[in-house]
């Protein structure tokens, strides 16, 4: 090991310690717990897949629902985020940095503030319904907008947008303009340039944006509770309830790790699919 290598590994150390103490050890602990049993509110060490079987039986439905919503949210966020990032990078010219700043500023707003903002916008007394009624488009407030899966999708897409814009913008910034002109010079229309030249090079950023949006929405339990109504329970809500209400850490852990595994599989699949579609021929 050379001197430079040794020095850089010392620089790594603090991050490694934090990562180990606050992430690896707790996660490892709950992974072990997921194979334990709960008897009379006491944890009993052991090794059984019973918790996973229960998760499969009880929560498969909620899982599929959650993943569907998370996929919709992640797809919408990535598409809108890409359009925004593309606008900032290629079309906005000197207004680009201002737009980027506006996107970032929404990050300062805070998570709960945004949720409550959407509550006031979408509610029966909200701005949307009031506006539509004032315009005479509807006679009475539409009740199903708030407290529905739609509200969850809308709220989370809005909240997650900066998380998608930033990595995608980062990737787009790494793309030089000349090859785009070269592609046009070789006969490619703008859409072809986008598909053949821009998207493949932006893939790392798009994948990161999609993954962030997907993981955050698949694990979220606050938004569904506040704007999702009684019919929108996502897996996060069930995990929370296992840990907090039923004090059943083993089943909660098993559910958590099932979701984690499913997330990884979904993301790997999505990445593989995108790479395949965009592979140059």
């Amino acid at each position, binding site marked *: 090991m050379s001197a430079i290598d040794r020095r850089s590994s010392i620089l790594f150390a603090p991050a490694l310690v934090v990562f180990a103490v606050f992430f690896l050890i707790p996660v490892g602990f709950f992974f072990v717990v997921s194979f334990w049993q709960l008897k009379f509110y006491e944890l009993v060490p052991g090794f059984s897949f019973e918790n996973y079987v229960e998760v499969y039986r009880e929560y498969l439905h909620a899982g599929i629902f959650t993943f569907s919503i998370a996929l919709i949210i992640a797809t919408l966020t990535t598409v809108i985020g890409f359009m925004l990032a593309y606008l900032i990078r290629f079309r906005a010219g000197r207004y680009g940095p201002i737009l980027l700043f506006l996107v970032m500023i929404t990050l300062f707003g805070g998570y709960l503030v945004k949720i409550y903002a959407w509550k006031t916008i979408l509610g029966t007394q909200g701005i949307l319904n009031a506006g539509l009624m004032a315009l005479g488009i509807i006679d009475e407030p539409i009740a199903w907008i708030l407290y529905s899966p739609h509200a969850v999708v809308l709220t989370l897409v809005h909240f997650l947008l900066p998380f998608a814009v930033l990595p995608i913008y980062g990737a787009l910034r790494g793309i*030089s303009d*000349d*090859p785009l*002109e*070269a*592609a*046009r*010079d*070789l*006969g*490619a*229309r703008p859409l*072809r340039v986008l598909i*053949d*030249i821009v998207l*493949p*090079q932006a893939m790392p950023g798009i994948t990161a944006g999609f993954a962030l949006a997907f993981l955050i929405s698949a694990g979220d339990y606050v938004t569904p509770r506040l704007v999702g109504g009684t019919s929108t329970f996502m897996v996060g809500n069930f995990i929370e309830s296992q840990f907090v209400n039923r004090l059943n850490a083993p089943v909660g852990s098993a559910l958590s790790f099932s979701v984690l595994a499913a997330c990884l599989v979904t993301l790997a699949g999505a990445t593989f699919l995108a790479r395949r579609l965009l592979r*140059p*021929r």
Partner: protein
Amino acid sequence: MQGALDRAATAPDRQPLVRLRGISKRFGDVWAVHPLDLDIHEGEFLALLGPSGCGKTTLLRLIGGFLEPSSGHIDIAGRDVTRLGPERRKTNMVFQSYALFPHMTVRQNIGYGLRIAGKPQPEIEAKVNQLIDLVHLGGLADRLPKNLSGGQQQRVALARALAMEPAVLLLDESLAALDLKLRKAMQDELRALHRAIGGTFVFVTHDQGEAMALANRIVVLQDGRIIQDGSPHEIYTAPTTEFVAGFIGEANIFEGERRAGTVALANGTRFSDAGRDGRVVVVVRPDAMALAPAPFGGEAAMTGRIEDVMFLGTHFRVAIRLDSGESVFSHRDAVAPGTDLAVGTRVHVGWQKDGRRVVEAA
């Protein structure tokens, strides 16, 4: 000899392949290109030559369709393409930065245009293989651009543009990023290519040596205007302005004034030359600047002392301080310099009538 050199530039009655009429480009308040006309004929190897900021790249990008002109129109092969983008013009560009697609292999880069055009796969493969041979990239076909040297990337960019069989191949300072040796090799390859496949090449350069070496027609630009247009031989021997004379090759430049058919230089030398009265500059190429130990029958005769001698292989580059205080350069043949070239030697300096050129001062 000169007839052969000039032929391509002066063929009068052929239909031009590219016809620019009143073309200009303004960025805000700045004129990058003032309204100008330019005809480019089939088979020409044309250099747009000028210092940076002279509008040569803008002009090339206007021809390629990457910019829309502020005025005027462009015909290519008899068709008005003024409002058409680069994807709809039969021109292809070799970019200064090469502009290769970083995520595609050499083969995919070269075949990209053909694939867009919807050519059948076997045809694309055959064509790509042929081009890979043409630009000597055999064995590198499946590499990504980042694993190629600058010269190799350059050749991929060239092959990619040639794959489209463009009516006009545009080269934007394409050799500027290469080191000297590689640049010379690429110049030879470009000339060989132009001989082999014919076609019309237009290239932008700020390097007069490169323009002289490659082109059979040079268009000199200054501040967005065409200053001179002709064969390399014409441009070198008969520059029409002081700027062209100074920019193309080395030149001794004397300031003077012409009155009633006599030019009087500031250092006292006088000779007759018909033309308008006014301030003039006299341009004498170093190879036309004669040196002799004794007075000789030149048009101009001056005396001075040899100040410095540089040996450049084929010739000596001799710096002489004239008695009038000016410094001039003379190139002397390495084998037969014709006079003693020791530093400090007093010499007679002058030129013959056909060795100088009088142009009106700017």
